[in-house]
Structures are given as structure tokens and as C-alpha cells.
């Protein structure tokens, strides 16, 4: 991957310097950055630095990549966590409703709606939500409630009181979270529906019914809790989807997170940032998989890893 990145035409010096730079000065800059060394040497240095946690220097942000990522990561994580929470709550609810109304018009209609959102590119949904609840609601229709279309907080954020600050943060968080939530919910709802239907057919649910428990206790006390087991592992496996989603959503809403920074880094040929960014994303995916395995073992007593 490193080699391929460096085979690309143009290098950071071209972009940092602009056409006014003399050839001599450009050569000097290349020498300073070690860009004139053979590729193998560059790779060795890079690998050694990478292993020690030194991701290099981002020339677009004028700061070490590590500092840049450290400042962006919390923003991505807060958006991701909000969306994950929202989509799981919504998805589980819808899945349960569908399972209970199995093979009725409600089930069918919800399936169609979910498939509709599932088929939707997140960047388009983000744009449409911006258009309706951000721009049109405020400027054209004059609705009393509208949501800011871009950024994390407004310019006068610092002058607000603490309560107003929280409200402000939530308002800015609403549309990005809503976008991600709607896109992710479909898969969870489908999974929950299947899981719930499977559990409802189990013997212990029949036993619970036979005992004379109220339908509510059978569903929520017995069936629901068991149907949740496989869903818990899904949360870890959803990390890649979530991260891909944040890239688009951050770009549309101007959310200062890692995804948007990576896209901008691609435009600016800021290789260290691209490489480190994808590395961090990969780590998060692996961590998600691990989390899924651990959760599964922790929740389900039948699963034991030796």
C-alpha cells in the first residue's frame, strides 16, 4: 500500500509549494523530508516510525498526524456512538413490532420502508435532510424548528451558557445522527425480526405461555431477552458500516471528524494522514469484531472460548 501511494504522480512538495517555487528550493525541500531517498529506505523509515506510533506529519494541518487524529477522533466517535445507539434502539423496536405483527400489513409496510432506507445512499439522504430540515425549513417555509446544516456548533458558541451549549450541541448533532440512524436501522430491524420470530417458536416460549403467563411477560420477559443475544454481537460487526457512513455524513454536514479529514487529505495528497486514517479505521473494525466475539461469549452461557 505504501509503495502504491508513492507511485502516484506528484508529491507533497508540489502541493505545499505551488508553481512559484524554484527547482532548487523544491529539491532542497525534498531532501529535508527524505523524499529523495530510494523507496525502500523511505518504506523502512516509515514502518519503523509507524510501529512506534509516529504517523508522520500532516502538511495540510501543519501538525503531526497523531495530534490531528487525536483531535478529530472524539468527534467521529461521538457521532458514531449516537448513531449506533439510535439505530439499535429504533431497529430493535421495529424488528419486534414486525415479528409480533408477522405477516400482516404492518409487517409488510415496515419491511418496504426499511428496504427503502437501506437502499438509500447515505450522502443523498444527508443532502435531502439538509435541504428540508436545514435550508427550506429555515429560509423558505419559515418553520419554527429547523436544524443547522453544517458544523458542530455556531460561531457564538463560546458566549452561551452551559444549558444553551448542550441544546446547541444536540441541535447540530441531530441531522447527522438521523441520517446514519435511518441508513443503519434497516439491517438491524431485519435481523431482530428474524431473531424474534425464531425465539417465539422455541419450546421455552411455549412453556411460558402454557404456564399461563400474560402475553406481555412472555414477549418481553422471555422472548425479547433471548432474541437480543445475537443482536448484541451485531453491534460489533456494524462498525465498518458505521465508519463508511460517517465518511459521507461528515463530508456533507461539515462535521470535523476523521472521515472528512481523510477525504480532504486525498484531495491534498496528504499521504501520511490518509495512511494513518485508514489504519485507525482498520483498528476500529478489528476491535469491533473482537467486541462482537467477547459480547457473544459474555451474554450467551452456551458459548465458551477455551
Amino acid at each position, binding site marked *: 500500500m505504501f509503495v502504491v501511494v508513492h507511485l502516484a504522480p506528484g508529491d507533497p512538495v508540489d502541493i505545499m509549494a505551488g508553481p512559484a517555487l524554484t527547482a532548487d528550493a523544491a529539491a532542497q525541500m525534498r531532501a529535508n523530508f527524505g523524499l529523495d531517498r530510494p523507496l525502500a529506505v523511505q518504506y523502512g523509515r516509515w514502518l519503523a516510525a509507524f510501529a512506534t506510533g509516529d504517523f508522520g506529519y500532516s502538511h495540510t494541518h501543519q501538525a503531526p498526524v497523531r495530534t490531528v487524529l487525536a483531535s478529530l477522533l472524539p468527534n467521529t466517535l461521538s457521532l458514531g456512538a449516537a448513531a449506533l445507539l439510535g439505530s439499535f434502539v429504533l431497529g430493535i423496536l421495529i424488528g419486534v413490532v414486525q415479528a409480533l405483527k408477522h405477516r400482516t400489513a404492518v409487517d409488510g409496510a415496515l419491511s418496504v420502508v426499511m428496504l427503502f432506507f437501506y437502499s438509500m445512499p447515505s450522502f443523498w439522504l444527508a443532502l435531502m435532510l439538509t435541504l428540508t430540515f436545514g435550508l427550506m425549513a429555515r429560509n423558505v417555509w419559515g418553520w419554527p424548528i429547523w436544524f443547522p446544516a453544517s458544523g458542530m456548533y455556531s460561531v457564538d458558541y463560546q458566549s452561551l451558557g452551559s444549558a444553551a451549549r448542550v441544546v446547541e450541541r444536540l441541535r447540530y448533532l441531530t441531522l447527522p445522527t438521523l441520517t446514519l440512524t435511518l441508513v443503519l436501522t434497516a439491517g438491524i430491524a431485519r435481523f431482530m425480526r428474524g431473531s424474534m420470530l425464531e425465539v417465539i417458536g422455541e419450546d421455552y416460549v411455549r412453556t411460558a405461555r402454557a404456564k399461563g403467563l400474560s402475553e406481555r411477560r412472555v414477549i418481553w420477559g422471555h422472548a425479547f431477552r433471548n432474541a437480543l443475544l445475537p443482536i448484541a454481537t451485531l453491534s460489533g460487526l456494524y462498525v465498518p458500516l458505521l465508519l463508511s457512513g460517517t465518511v*459521507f455524513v461528515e463530508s456533507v454536514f461539515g462535521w470535523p471528524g476523521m472521515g472528512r479529514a481523510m477525504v480532504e487529505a486525498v484531495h491534498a495528497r496528504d499521504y501520511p494522514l490518509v495512511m494513518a486514517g485508514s489504519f485507525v479505521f482498520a483498528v476500529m473494525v478489528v476491535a469491533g469484531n473482537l467486541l462482537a466475539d467477547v459480547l457473544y461469549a459474555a451474554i450467551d452461557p452456551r458459548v465458551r472460548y477455551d
Partner: protein
Amino acid sequence: MRPSIHEFDMTEGVAERGTAHRAASTLAFVLPGLPQLLAGRKRGALALGAWVAVWMVLWLRWSAVRAALGGGRGSGAVTILGITLVAVWVWSWRARADVGPAAQERASDTWGGPVVVGVGALAAIVLAALLAPLLTDFDPYVGGSIRSERLIGPSSAHLLGTDRLARDVFTRILYGARISLTIGLVAAGLAATLGTMAGAVAGYVGGLVDSVIMRTVDIVLAFPRLVLLISIVAIVRPSVPLIVVILALTQWPSTARLVRGEVLSLKERDFIVAARALGMSRSRIITRHLVPNALGPVIVATTLGVGHAIVLEAGLSFLGIGLSPSIPSWGNMVAEGRENLLEAWWLSTFPGLAIVVTVLAINLVGDGLRDALDPRAHAP
């Protein structure tokens, strides 16, 4: 499933079948698809729809068709129009006998309603893309007068409005369908081929080969696909063929994993053991016995993969790191419209809607195929 009266009363069934058959033959000639539809075969609706669509084009857009016949733009589209017409006719004629209750039962088992809707929508989109020059008078690249025809809302002259270079949005969506669909289909096909071969070899040969292939798969799958794509396009500004290759390269690992699992379980089955005992070569066992039997899930995954590829291409183009903005792909159009989002809402809305409808149709077909082909994934 449904007990039918015809099954019990043999004599009446035969007599009725005679007249029904004659009527169906006539109908099949005039309105292909209708007799099959009336008999409960849902795919008759597709034939009928295609038939009506073709005649609508001929009737409403006769001037364009005549111009194309006279050697103007769109002669290829006219050929496709003709092929569609003949194909629908031939199918209907050959299936004219399929109107009995038995055929009805057979048909209702394989093709559910959502699948027919999905296939129909997909066929309509593909047909619209192929017939683009006949369906519109405008050019996708050259706009009208910038001063008077720029950013006009949807109207009778411009169905879906015009963009900031006064180009007709509807026209651009039609031509964009060619690009987006081609990318989706070729990328998914390529990934399926590559993934199936790699997965089958890894599963059957095992050992070091298996380790090498599957570790590669693991590495690729460790990255979120979009992130991987972003780091690749950081290096190369993709052209259409290149983005197809890139999409295929990031998609094949999941197919490979799927096929390997399938092959591992097939490998121990008697018919493979028998094939080996007969002295068949490895490559023959893999291509003739393993791959065909593992194909069901692959077909489902590939169908859904077409949708993923379309969305990903659109996404990359939207982020400005995909296809060059001069190419009217759907993603590029959504991105362009973003600059005039408030004054011209139609610019981003309609191309995006085209993506949604296409992907929705693909997902409907994929789900239907899953129910039909993948015995383990039966929805309760």
C-alpha cells in the same frame, strides 16, 4: 397449494382448457403477457409492461424514432426497441400454453410479487438507459442557452429541470444510468468471477494456498470498504474502467470467503469423493462439480453487490474523488447539485432518487433470489 376446482372435475377442465387455449393464443399475439398474467403467472406483467412501453415509445416519440431510422442519432436504440418487441412476442407465444392451473402453481412458487416488481423496475431502468437517445431530444453534455435556460425547475419542456449549465437533468439521468449500471454490473461480475475462483481453489486445495488466499482476504476485509477505496483513489484519479477494477478488487474477498465455506462442506460429499475416485483432475472437479454447486449464494451476493458497487461509485464521485466531474454519473450529478441545493432542489434530488430506485430494485431481486436459491437463508 390452493385447491382448484379444475383439478377435481376432469372433463370440465379439458373443455375449458380448449377454449382458454384458443383465446390465449389470440391474446398472446395482440397483447403478449396478458393471458399469462390472467392465468396468474406474475412474469406476464413484465412482458405486458415491456410491450406497452415499446409501443408508447413508438407512439409518443415517433419523430425521434423516424429520425433515428433515417440515420440520425439513436439507431442502436431502435435496434434494441425491435429486439425487445420480438423477444416479448416470442416469449408470449411460447408460453401461451402455460395458462392451466398446474402452470399457475408452478409459477407462484418461484416468482414472488416483490421479485416481479424488482425485475420490472430494473428492466425498465435498463431499457430506459439503452433507449436514451429516443426518449429525449436533448444532449447530456451540451446545454441550451445559459442566459435563459439555466436552473429551470421541472416543467413540461424539461421534465426534471435543467442544471447550471442549462443541461436537461432528465437526459443526464438517462445517460448517467448507462455509466452507473455498467460500472455496477461489470464490477460485481468481475468480483464474482475472481472471488469464486479464489474461494474454490482455497477451499479445495487447502494448505499453503488456502492460507495465502485467505490471509489476503482477511486483510482486505479488515478495512471498511469505503476507507480502502479512499486510500486507493488517493493515488489514482479513476477513469470508468479503473473504478470498475478498484470496486471489483475490494469486493471479491467476501465472495471468496463465501465460496470457500461452501466448498469446504461440499468437498466431503459423496459425489466429490466419487469424482476424485474416478480420477478427475483438480481443475475439472473445481470447475465442473464444486463451483456449480456453490453458485447459489454467489448469485445472491453478486446481485446485491451490483447495488453496492453503484452506491459506492456514486459515493466516491460525490466526495469528489471518483469519476471526473465531466462524466454524468449519478454520483457526480448529486455532487454538482449540492452547489445549488437551495435554489434548485431538483438537481440533487432526482439523480439520487434514480440511485435509490435502482438499488431498491436490485435489493428486491436479491432478496427474492435468496429465498429461491439459498436454502439456509429461508425467511421465516
